[in-house]
Every structure is written in structure tokens, then in C-alpha cells.
């Protein structure tokens, strides 16, 4: 009976040892065989990017952060710890061993040193040391990953800011002539009209003013506009439009045409009037200047060609760098109306100084002042 128990114990212990050895072979992380001292000490937990970029597997503390700095976009992937199973043999240099190769080498070296049957305890001790080393390596890898994640996060934040800053650098904001050229008429848009009631209590920004102005202009038919930078604010330029002598915009498409308006509806009286009178064309450009800086208008002559260039030369939207600025009580929205008269015999007009109408009348006739958006 004791003999049977002894045999059973031996078989059981042999089976347990076999299982343990199998488990050690399939373990993803490996240890360096004692005989391969020239090989890297740790082959695990290395970032994929580091492997692919540098061709060897590193687990040094600087590997991942360097990868993160070199390629911040790929850093989240690069910093992720991976197992050695994902390491391609083709990509590994000759002096780098995979985990299975190292374990196999370890077993061979143990056999060579201690023999197949003896000194199992020593082999187990070596295996335990290798496992401990592998565990330490895994922990180190996690630390590296954490470090690299932090580094990536740190590297990424300034990179994002840099991209934003770079955008604003690469797309310079054109400046409106400052001080502005003297206009035919001027009007101050009351501050209470510029902001919706919902923003009256909060901290409004310049983009809120821009939104209100844009909505009022859209309702009045001004779909084309461009933005310029002025000191501490912005200027919004509308498209050169053809108007009647009383400031009422003409119907489209005549409104936006610089060509002479032909007689569209025939009647004898209108025909005789058109034949024997020279009706000049009137044109208008409105520039809204939103700035807390007081200004006097510069004594410079503006031509209708200048006004056309204004629309083409500005930005299509208010830049965030200007729009995010706070709109305070010190700001003033000034509407500068540049009115041009084009004689029937000429292709270009000249500015009317002073204009026939007041600035407020221009805004009312243009349906900007009376736009529903002002009512909120």
C-alpha cells in the first residue's frame, strides 16, 4: 500500500513538474538564459513604435517618451505595452531573442549544466529568478507606459496649442485701414441692439456681436461680407451695392451690378426720361467697426475700386482669436457708410463727400436697422 502511495506521489509530482514546465514555455515573457549574456537583458513590454522605429527592443525609461516626442500622434499607440509575442522575428536584429527562444535556451543550458535528471531544484530556482525578472520587467514596462502616457499627454497638449497658434500665424488677419478713411456718413449702432437679451447678463464676446450683426445683415440681403482686424476689435465690410438716390437698395441682380441699368419697363414717359436725362448710379459700402478704441477718420479718398477690394481682401469669418475677446461696455459699433456716385457716362464712381443721407438713414433704408434681429 505504501509502495502504491509512493508511486502515486512520484507520478503526481512528475506530472506537476511537467505542467509547470509547459506553463513556463508558453508564458509570454521570458528571461535571459544564463549562457546568452550578450543578448539584451529584457525582451518585453517594449513599445511597438520603438521596435519598428529603432529595430531593437528597448525597455529603457527613455524609449517611450522619445517615441512620443518624435511622433506625438502615434504616441498613444506607441506607448502601449505589448507582449513579446507581437514582436516579429524578421524585424528583430540577430542579437535579440524572442521569449520562446530564450526559454528554450534556458532549458538547454540547464540541461547542459545540470543534466536531464539532476539538480531540478537549481533549474527551478533559475526559472523562478527568470520569472521574477520578467515580472519586474512587466512592472517596469507598465511604469514606462505610464511615463510615456504622461509624456505623450504632456507632449500632445502643447502640440495642439501649437497647431492652433500656427493656424493663426499662417492665416494672418488682414487689417482695415486705420484710422479708417473718411466716410460719406457715420452712425453709431446702439449697444443694446448688438447683444441678445440672453447674453445681457452673461459675459458677451465679440463673436456674439458678430452673430447679431451677421443675422441682421442676412435678413437685409447682405450675404457677402468680409472681416478685418482693427485695434482691439474687428471691422465687417459689406458688398458694394447699387442704391437709389434715397438709399433704398435696388432689386437683385441690379443691386450687385456695377453696369448701367437698362430700361426694363417701357413707357413713353420713362423712355423720354431715360433718353434725355443722365441718371447717375449710386453705390454704397457699409463698414461696421467694433472697437473700444476711439478714432478719427483719416482724410483719404476712397474709390469704388477700393471698396470692391475691401470685400475681396478680408476674411470670410471672424477669427477665433478676435471673436473670443470679451465685449465690454467700452466697445462701440460704428457704421461707416461710403457712398459713391457714378455718372451715366463713366464706368467708375467717386465718393460723395458728404453723402446725401445720414448714416442712420442709410441703415434704415438698407433694412439693417429695422431687421427683426434687433428686436430679439
Amino acid at each position, binding site marked *: 500500500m505504501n509502495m502504491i502511495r509512493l508511486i502515486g506521489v512520484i507520478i503526481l509530482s512528475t506530472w506537476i513538474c511537467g505542467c509547470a514546465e509547459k506553463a513556463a514555455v508558453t508564458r509570454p515573457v521570458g528571461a535571459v538564459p544564463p549562457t546568452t549574456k550578450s543578448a539584451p537583458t529584457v525582451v518585453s513590454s517594449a513599445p511597438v513604435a520603438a521596435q519598428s522605429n529603432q529595430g531593437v527592443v528597448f525597455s529603457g525609461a527613455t524609449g517611450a517618451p522619445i517615441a512620443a516626442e518624435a511622433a506625438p500622434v502615434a504616441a498613444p499607440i506607441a506607448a502601449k505595452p505589448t507582449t513579446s509575442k507581437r514582436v516579429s522575428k524578421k524585424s528583430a536584429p540577430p542579437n535579440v531573442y524572442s521569449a520562446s527562444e530564450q526559454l528554450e535556451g534556458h532549458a538547454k543550458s540547464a540541461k547542459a549544466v545540470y543534466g536531464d535528471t539532476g539538480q531540478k531544484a537549481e533549474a527551478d530556482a533559475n526559472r523562478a529568478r527568470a520569472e521574477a525578472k520578467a515580472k519586474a520587467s512587466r512592472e517596469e514596462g507598465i511604469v514606462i507606459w505610464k511615463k510615456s502616457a504622461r509624456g505623450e499627454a504632456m507632449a500632445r497638449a502643447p502640440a495642439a496649442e501649437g497647431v492652433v497658434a500656427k493656424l493663426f500665424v499662417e492665416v494672418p488677419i488682414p487689417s482695415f485701414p486705420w484710422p479708417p478713411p473718411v466716410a460719406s456718413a457715420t452712425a453709431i449702432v446702439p449697444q443694446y441692439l448688438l447683444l441678445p437679451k440672453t447674453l445681457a447678463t452673461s459675459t458677451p464676446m465679440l463673436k456674439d456681436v458678430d452673430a447679431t450683426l451677421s443675422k441682421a445683415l442676412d435678413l437685409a440681403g447682405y450675404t457677402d461680407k468680409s472681416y478685418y482686424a482693427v485695434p482691439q476689435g474687428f471691422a465687417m465690410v459689406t458688398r458694394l451695392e447699387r442704391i437709389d438716390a434715397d438709399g433704398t437698395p435696388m432689386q437683385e441682380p441690379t443691386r450687385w451690378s456695377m*453696369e448701367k441699368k437698362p430700361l426694363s419697363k417701357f413707357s413713353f414717359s420713362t423712355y423720354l426720361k431715360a433718353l434725355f436725362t443722365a441718371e447717375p448710379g449710386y453705390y454704397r459700402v457699409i463698414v461696421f467697426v467694433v472697437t473700444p478704441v476711439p478714432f478719427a477718420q483719416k482724410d483719404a479718398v476712397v474709390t469704388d475700386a477700393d471698396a470692391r477690394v475691401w470685400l475681396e481682401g478680408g476674411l470670410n469669418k471672424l477669427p477665433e482669436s478676435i471673436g473670443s475677446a470679451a465685449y465690454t461696455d467700452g466697445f462701440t459699433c460704428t457704421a461707416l457708410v461710403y457712398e459713391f456716385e457714378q455718372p451715366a457716362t463713366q464706368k467708375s464712381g467717386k465718393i460723395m463727400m458728404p453723402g446725401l443721407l445720414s448714416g442712420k438713414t442709410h441703415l434704415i433704408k438698407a433694412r439693417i436697422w429695422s431687421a427683426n434681429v434687433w428686436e430679439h
Partner: protein
Amino acid sequence: MEMKMVECKKHLAVVWFVGGGVLFFILFLQSIRGVYGDKVADAWGWLMPSIMPTLSLMIAVFVMDALNKSRQVQDVIADVFLFRLTFYLSIAYLVVALLTILLQPFSTSSPSEIMQLSHLWMGPFQGLVTASLGAFFMKNK
């Protein structure tokens, strides 16, 4: 059908003086009303070469006829075909010149631009009219 040369000359003179007078009067009113602005000289520079040579020729012929009151001159028979050709060409030319002014309100171009442009069709037309007028006055039966 035979027509005396004197009668034919009178018919042509009526056409040219009436047509030229209408053109002159319209341009005069437009100039007074400032339709041409500072380009009024260009407008008159367009009208005068268009009608004045023919009118001057007619005046000269009439003066010569008035000075030469011999019976032989009064009885000269005109070439009817040539007279009709000259007559209708003159009417057509003056109508085209008149339309150049009267259609200005329907154009997107300025009046002075239209006048400059009209040289394209007025020039050849004027050549035809002048040639037929010269042939008519020179050829007598």
C-alpha cells in the same frame, strides 16, 4: 417713268435735311440735359462726320444749280434706278443713325460707348450712301 434731276435732288435734300435735323435736335437736347457729361464733344464728333459731308455736297449742288439757271440744266432727266437706290440707302442710313441714339436707354453701355461702337456699321454704310450719291449727281442723261 422719267424724273427730272431737279425733283430728285429735292427729294434727296428733304430726306437728308429732315433726318439730319432730327439727329441734330436730339443730340442738342441731350447735350443740354447733360446726358453725355464731359463727353459731349465725343457725341458731336460722332454726328458731324456722319451727316455733314452729304449735307455740304447737297448745299453745294443747290448753289450751283441756282447760279446756273439755264434751261438745259432744268430739263435734265435723272436715272430712276440710281435715284431710288440713293434715296432708300439714304433713308436707311439716317434711320440707323437715329436708332443709335434712340436705343441708348435700352443698353447697358454708356451713350458714348454706343457711339464709338456704331462706327462698325455706320462706316461701311456711309461709304455706300456717299458712293451712290456721287454717282447720282455725276450721271446725267
